[in-house]
């Protein structure tokens, strides 16, 4: 499995590539990607697929709490930290 910083880097690159609305140097781990419409609802489908791949486990969106995709920090906490604990 990838290290924490590799995962964060992968997420950052994916967001920049998918969005097309933000440059890498403008995106921090606490930049709100949904609120600022950097990622659209339709792109979330791809984000979920990418997270399933990266974490190697399926995601059931009906079980997700609101706000889990807020920013890179939140995504990391929700989808990767429990697996490491």
């Amino acid at each position, binding site marked *: 499995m990838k290290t924490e910083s590799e995962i964060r880097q992968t997420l950052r690159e994916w967001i920049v590539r998918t969005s097309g609305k933000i440059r890498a140097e403008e995106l921090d781990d606490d930049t709100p990607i*949904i609120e600022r419409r950097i990622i*659209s*609802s*339709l792109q*979330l*489908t*791809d984000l*979920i*697929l990418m997270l*399933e*791949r990266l974490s190697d486990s*399926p*995601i*059931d*969106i*009906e079980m997700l709490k609101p706000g889990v995709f807020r920013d890179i920090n939140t995504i990391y906490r929700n989808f990767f930290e429990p697996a490491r604990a």
Partner: protein
Amino acid sequence: MNTFEASVEKLCSASIKDYINPYSYLEWPEKIDTEQWSTTPELISLYGTPFYDGLSTAEQQRLSFYEAINFFSLNIHGEKSLIEGLAQRLYRKGNDLVSPYIHHFLDEENKHMIYFGGFCVRYAGKVYPDRKMVFTREYEPGEDDFMFFGKVLIFEEIVDVYNKRMAKDERLAPIVRQINFLHHRDESRHLAFGRLLVKNMYERYSDVWSMDTRERISEYLKNYLQATWKEYYNPAAYKDAGLKDAFDVQEQALQMQATRKHRAEVSAGCIRFLMENGILLEQPQL
């Protein structure tokens, strides 16, 4: 009575005539043999790619079973949000003409989930989870309603191309054919209603909307069409069918010429309708 009203009334009568009991209509076999076709081979997402050509017939048939589970699962998710949206619009002010039809629409979509869910749970023990999410935002007057029915139209038009072909395909397990047939029977009315309503709404609102709004709608529906197609390529189904590197398969298959051609063919009718009515402002790349 204007033509819109008359058409809605006609659709209501047709629904009443075709009304069925979803529990007594289908004969469910004890189990499904996965070494037979559950999806028309030419409609399997990987058809025409090396991923598909490299499989034995038995493996292709196993894949066709999980593709059916995926197709039925995505119908269930589409129908769940459809029912939510329809229920919200029932008896809403300004909907007097369509409310009687919304009753049929709701009834029929609920039955569809009984067929689709019945198949998935009986034979695969599961429904694949949904990956679609929507967030609310500020809309122009009528935009929210229009987008809702625009998305429904895209979703149902694509599904129906599959249903029509599979209902006729004698290679398929009988229960799969029957479900596709029953769905198509109701959907032919939903499609007629969808086109009628979407056209009617666009004519009503497009003068009120700014060019910005019209562009935003076009862009959104284009992205929705692409997102809808991606769901037909489900790594979870590939994994269940025994394929290796399911995520790579999904990513690569989506880029291949054979699958692009397939998506363009299946969506042609729906794209033509949206372009002819000025709703889609440019041809989507699929």
